[in-house]
């Protein structure tokens, strides 16, 4: 083997090493309502970066518990402000990185076109919501029922999904005739069967992200968090039906 060939091998090997050093990988924990949006964000992010992002989704409460038990996540996109704050207080997240990335919207979803009367007239068998103990959208759903004075009547008709995605599936499969879910999880073909809940019916759904201490030095996680908060990222988020600080 000539000296030139060796030089090639060295060059290739060092380029490979440099690339793998530059292209970091990150695990991002995402509340279910934001899963589809995150997938779109990752796709956009990959066009401008070599970093790899893996999405792990679940209810906010479930992910929070997993993080407390040392789950290998670098960044947490929560559906509330409480859990990120609690993680900061217990030293598992970086205080300065906590930012609101989206304002959630709640919709009433049915098997056919719905409006407020569908809910208030009580002519339904089951109302699917996310478990309020685990999912902020479940909390907003309960607040909405309280606001409308329906919490007592609706109590016996409530069915709880493990997260907002399961509550959505319960309605789409026809098992529940109504649901209160995140606007962002509703697929295009079901959007005609939704009615947006006025934001005055419940506490604002402020969704915060936070860098976890374990992933604080992860370039991919930092880059992705910055992208989510960037003008480009926020535009993607708005397209999925969220409010942002832009408007």
């Amino acid at each position, binding site marked *: 083997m000539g000296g030139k060939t060796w030089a090639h091998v060295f060059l290739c090997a060092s380029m490979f090493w440099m690339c793998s050093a530059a292209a970091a990988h990150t695990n991002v924990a995402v509340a279910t309502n934001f899963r589809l949006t995150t997938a779109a964000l990752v796709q956009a992010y990959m066009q401008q970066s070599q970093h790899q992002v893996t999405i792990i989704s679940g209810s906010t409460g479930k992910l929070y518990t997993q993080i407390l038990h040392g789950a290998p996540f670098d960044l947490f996109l929560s559906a509330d402000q409480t859990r990120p704050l609690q993680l900061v207080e217990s030293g598992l997240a970086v205080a300065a990185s906590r930012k609101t990335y989206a304002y959630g919207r709640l919709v009433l979803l049915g098997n056919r076109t719905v409006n407020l009367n569908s809910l208030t007239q009580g002519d339904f068998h089951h109302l699917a919501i996310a478990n309020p103990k685990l999912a902020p959208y479940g909390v907003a759903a309960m607040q909405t029922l309280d606001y409308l004075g329906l919490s007592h009547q609706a109590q016996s008709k409530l069915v709880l999904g493990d997260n907002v995605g399961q509550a959505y599936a319960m309605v789409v499969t*026809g*098992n529940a005739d109504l649901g209160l879910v995140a606007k962002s999880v509703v697929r295009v073909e079901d959007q005609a069967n939704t009615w947006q809940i006025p934001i005055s019916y419940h506490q604002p759904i402020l969704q915060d992200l936070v860098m976890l201490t374990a992933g604080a030095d992860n370039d991919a996680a930092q880059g992705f968090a910055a992208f989510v908060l960037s003008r480009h990222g926020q535009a993607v988020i708005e397209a999925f039906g969220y409010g942002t600080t832009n408007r």
Partner: protein
Amino acid sequence: MIEWSAIILTLQLAAFSTTILLLLGTPLAWWLATTARRSKPTIEALTALPLVLPPTVLGFYLLILLSPSSAIGGFWLSLTGSTLTFSFSGLVIASVIYSLPFMVQPLHSAFESLGRAPLEAAASLRASPIDTFFSIVIPQCRRGFLTAIVLSFAHTLGEFGVVLMVGGNIPGRTRVISIAIYEHVETLNYGQAHALAALLLVFSFVVLLVVYTTNKKSVVRIA
């Protein structure tokens, strides 16, 4: 504070399912033990499917089958005015399917090991098949019956994945012990999770201990 509603509901579900399974599983196991038909392996395979399939597969199909927009779920809705999913009846159907092999397989092998001889002897004494079944087969196969009943009951107590998908976590109706434990763990209520988990652990151990002890005794007695 122990969640009695979840415990009572779980015991009711296991009792209902086991009773239905006994009524359905006994003729099925008898047919499997005595038939010479070519369809036997197919029926055997179908019966054993819940052993192999992930609960999510069963849960997914049940979510679709029991839905009011399907034929079965729609018929039930028009009959009773309530849906099958998110109901106790739906959970009973799910548990019957989920625990079917635990009823059929012990009975099947008990019937097979009984052999043809006692049946032929009874027939030669002009006992009717029904009479033979109640006075020969059931007493001779009581260990098989006990094992089948206990395993079906215990397996239904431990049902989780299917209920998570078709139950809807309704207190007093579909919130069984396993779902309650899951939620307590997720919400960091370890005290309550511990109470229910320990109860289930002790109960399951005692049940199995009883089965193995009685099985051993009857072996001794027969020998």
